[in-house]
């Protein structure tokens, strides 16, 4: 997983709001967050290999009272600014009439690889073979 993404997930969990990756199966009451990696948004290719990759990441906040908006948005945006720099934006603010929830959606991009980087191979010097000198 991209390091920026894993730090983002742990930083969002530290905000005090319940946060789940890729949505909640049973959603909690009150304010909660959803975070997820969506798709590969860009890549740098060379020599038939991907040198660098960018992934689209999204953060959603759901809350019931409009008075909470400033607090929730402030916390999430300060986390986004510290983890992603300036590669994020507020995509939409929506209101769900059926559930009475407010929904703010942020999108951003993180750099990295989806698989864990390979373990570094320790440099081992070939053992010197000593021919028996007489």
């Amino acid at each position, binding site marked *: 997983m991209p390091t920026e993404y894993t730090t983002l997930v742990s930083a969002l969990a530290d905000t005090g709001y319940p946060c789940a990756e*890729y*949505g*909640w*199966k*049973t*959603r909690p009451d009150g304010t909660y967050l*959803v975070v*997820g990696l*969506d*798709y590969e*948004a*860009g890549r740098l290719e060379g020599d038939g290999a991907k040198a660098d990759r960018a992934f*689209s990441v*999204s953060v*959603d906040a*759901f809350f019931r009272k409009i008075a909470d908006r400033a607090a929730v948005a402030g916390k999430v945006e300060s986390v986004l600014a510290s983890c992603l720099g300036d590669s994020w934006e507020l*995509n*939409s603010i*929506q209101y*769900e009439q*059926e*559930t009475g*929830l407010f*929904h703010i*959606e942020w*999108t951003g991009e993180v750099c990295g690889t989806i698989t864990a980087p390979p373990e570094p191979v320790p440099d081992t010097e070939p053992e010197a073979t000593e021919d028996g000198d007489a």
Partner: protein
Amino acid sequence: MGYTMKTEGLDDLSKMLNQLGEQAGKVAAVGLYDGAGVMADEIKRQAKSIKADKFHYAVFPPNVTRNPSVEEKEAVTKASAGIAKFDKNGGAVETSVGYSNSGYWNIRGKMKPVPLIANSINSGTSFMKRQPFFRKAVTKGTPKATNAIVRTAEAKIEEIINQSGG
């Protein structure tokens, strides 16, 4: 001491360039129309990959997040992703592609606007998992659309040059 230099064909060249300048808006529009078509196709293609569930709304437990229903997926795959009227501003031409005027779709016996359904699937809601097919289509479709615009515009320019006897 002096040099005499003679150039031929400048008249033809200036005539051709003039003709190209006059038709710049037309060239851009022809290219853009192809590009917009490519983008609309890409949106349709991504909409087909939406993961949908078959279920009865009535028995669905509260507070449970679900995938889009089969009807909701049908709305975004079968409704037309349209191309807006071209806005010409000198040599620049603008348009937009999307579900803005795609009408209504029958969901649970009620007619719901297609853009609203598309937005719910794209952004996710408290009760529906997000599947950003539209954003993905825009990201993946932009290089394809750009290529299509350049290809068509180049063909059109060549046509104009040939017509003006260049």
